[in-house]
């Protein structure tokens, strides 16, 4: 499948665990904070003086050092992050903010704290359900984090400062949403791999430094010819997938990924953040709990299935690729009933289990090929 040409900036960033734009921001006096989960409202880490970096581990080959501490039965995203950390890849970052999102992340936090004793480390306790009490709890958690950030880095985390960061984040979300919407077209001007490149690199970069290149790209793509050599339109669903090369393998086999319902995908993460002048942290808390839906949110299984089915309709997809990271318990277990629920709705679905690092490309191609053929494509 033909892949659209992306600006060199994004192609360069995709292979960098720490974006050079982060170095640039730090040279300007900002402090860079790593985070690992979509439940962390990034806007709070993007107040003036700070920049949030959603860390990835591109290029990691093995995880021998991380396995010593985390064992080999922990998800490979978690292990890869620890491996790169122990190699010193993230030394330039100024701190870590974790979310008590799953067993693996909680233990990564414990091991990071023990092994590195970073100057700034925090873990956010995000409830496992939504609703008024959970939103209150989460708002209090964000308030505590905001105070800690202010104390540690001397930054303003008051309502006005957070609202400015929210405005910046919304501008970023607007452009990403526009790019995502283009994928609804019959012959979209942007592929899934290209979108994934933009998404993962921009999440790992200071937003103010990527918004303009993204807006310029969106303007170009509005006039660009569409991709018309695909065999089927697919929705990529499941756990964390921040590897554009993985999506590329699916697309090389003829399956155009038109929407991604993953931790770092287009759905539903690109919805705008509601503005609350007086209490922006409450707005951030509410959005996190209602907008992102990982199986860690224990009451929302039916909503997650509906969401996938809605996306299939909205993006006129022919089928769903449900991929889960090996050893991820939440997605690993939920994928089984989700698979049958999607099938029961009459939508073709393929389940894939994968490692964080891209391996067994041939096997992946064969599975996709067979899936497309099973759909008569």
């Amino acid at each position, binding site marked *: 499948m033909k892949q659209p040409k992306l600006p060199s900036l994004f192609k360069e960033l995709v292979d960098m665990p720490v974006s050079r734009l982060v170095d640039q921001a730090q040279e300007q006096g900002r402090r860079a904070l790593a985070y690992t989960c979509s439940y962390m409202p990034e806007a709070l880490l993007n107040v003036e003086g700070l920049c949030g970096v959603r860390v990835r581990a591109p290029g990691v080959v093995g995880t021998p050092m991380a396995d*010593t*501490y*985390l*064992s080999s*039965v*922990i998800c490979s995203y978690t292990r890869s992050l620890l491996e790169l950390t122990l190699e010193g890849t993230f030394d330039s970052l100024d701190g870590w903010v974790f979310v*008590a999102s*799953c*067993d*693996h992340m*909680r*233990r*990564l936090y*414990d*091991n990071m704290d*023990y092994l590195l004793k970073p100057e700034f480390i925090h*873990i956010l*306790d995000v*409830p*496992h*359900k939504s609703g008024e*009490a*959970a939103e209150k*709890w989460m708002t*209090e*958690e964000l308030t505590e984090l905001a105070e800690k950030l202010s104390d540690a880095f001397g930054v303003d985390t008051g309502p006005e400062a957070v609202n400015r960061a929210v405005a910046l984040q919304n501008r970023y979300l607007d452009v990403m949403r526009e790019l995502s919407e283009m994928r609804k077209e019959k012959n979209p001007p942007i592929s899934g791999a290209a979108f994934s490149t933009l998404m993962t690199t921009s999440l790992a970069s200071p937003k103010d430094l990527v918004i303009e290149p993204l807006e310029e790209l969106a303007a170009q793509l509005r006039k660009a010819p569409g991709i018309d050599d695909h065999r089927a339109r697919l929705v990529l669903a499941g756990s964390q997938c921040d590897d554009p090369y993985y999506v590329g393998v699916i697309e090389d086999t003829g399956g155009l990924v038109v929407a991604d319902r993953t931790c770092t995908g287009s759905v539903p993460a690109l919805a705008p953040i509601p503005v609350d002048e007086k209490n922006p942290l409450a707005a951030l808390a509410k959005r996190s709990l209602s907008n992102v839906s990982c*199986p*860690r949110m*224990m*009451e929302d*299984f039916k909503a997650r299935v509906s969401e996938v089915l809605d996306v299939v309709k909205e993006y006129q997809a022919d089928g769903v690729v449900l991929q*889960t990271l*090996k*050893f991820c*318990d*939440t997605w*690993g*277990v*939920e*994928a*089984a*009933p989700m*698979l*049958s*629920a999607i099938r029961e709705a009459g939508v073709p679905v393929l*389940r894939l*289990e994968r490692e964080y690092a891209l391996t067994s490309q041939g096997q992946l191609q064969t599975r996709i090929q067979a899936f497309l053929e099973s759909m008569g494509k």
Partner: protein
Amino acid sequence: MSFFDLVPVKPTLAERAASAVDHGRHWARIALMAAKNGPGPMSRFAQGKDWMKQMARANVLLDMVTCTRSGDYRKANALAAVELVAGFGDLIGALATRPDRVVIHEDLIPPEILFAMDLAPWMAELLGIAVPMIEATFAEPYIDASESAGIPPDVCSLPKTVMGLVLENQMPKGVAMVTSNMPCDGGMASYSVVEKEMNIPTFRLDVPYNFYGDRAVEYFANELRNMIAWLEEHTPGRMDWDRLRMICDERNRGVEAEMELWDLVAQKPAPMAGEAVYLSHLMYMIALPGTPRGTKLFQDLVKIAKKIRAEGKGALPDERYRAVLWNPPTLIYPELFVWAEQNYGVALLMDMLSYNRHPFIDTKSPDTMLRDLARIIMEGPMARHTRGPSENFFGDLFALYERFSLDMIWMAGHIGCKNTMALNGMFRERCRERDIPLFTLNYDLSDTRVVSPTDMRKQAESFMETVMKAERIR
């Protein structure tokens, strides 16, 4: 009588008589259960439930814990095993006779509340915990059923057993279900499968990660209030606060006795160890708390321990080492405790499932009871150790090491427990810093095919002989 690699003790005449009495009591409990609940409801309930046949062989557990011990220690273990079956009988009896009140619950839901609402609680994990102690391979067909349905093999085998029991139509039916985000991601996620298959209304409790302080207590107590309101809406159960007060008062008495027992266990040589400590806790603090029978069991164990102590003896004939088995006991190989005693004089004094903080419940008002029940769950073994910050895990373990004057730590390294597997590196280093010998036993909690009991025993042998330089007693 022969057990897996254990040597039966040659009983005295008195012990033979005592054994006959124990078996009589064991069968009497079962007969009483059948008589009390009526043969009709019991046989209807038992229909199609393969595990009831295995439960009928529960006397093997009694045999295992008694034929290998002697004297008062034998008596204490017999007591715990008999009362375990009796407790089981109570729970099953309620399922058979009051099907309209059966509430399936996950193991970290306070059953005190369900009993106070006059419901018939059934802990979904109980079969997967208890039956492998009678028949080691019990869980394996259910693990397979679960994996056949698409559950990954790396998920903890206990939730896989639960899902398999449901998929194979072996789980008792309920009118409603209450679960939570505990004890791990695998356990929490398994309830999406259980809910889909059982198709019953389900309520989920959210236990915070940062559970210290009033904010967390209020948050979780509020979850309990919502659960009560939900149960009143979805079941015939109604909250009876006076009944809850009675249950909590009884639980407090039981806790008082159990704390006394632990104080005795902490003495050298320990006048109590093994199954007497963990089976009693499993049934009467986790599954069936707040019952007079539970309180009496703990009080009786205290009396026996005091008697052993007064005679200047320990529970074991020759206590050479003292250890804790961190993580839950080895369900597929309960003989490990006896084997360690017989071969190396290792007294296994405590395990993680039993060792949890025991706040007494202030029964002044509904609010104080709910807040203290919230504390018990939040500070309970799984919420606290496996899921909570690692400081809880290590802090408690090292405190326990001092309190019980231990010589080593045995870590039951259940391969499916990612929470504890991810602490093993830190664990090794932190034990080394303190000069604490650490034995990590690689195995699977519910599946003998991953590591067989023979291999588990070999690992223990290797540790005792190479690290501890222990000489075998036999």
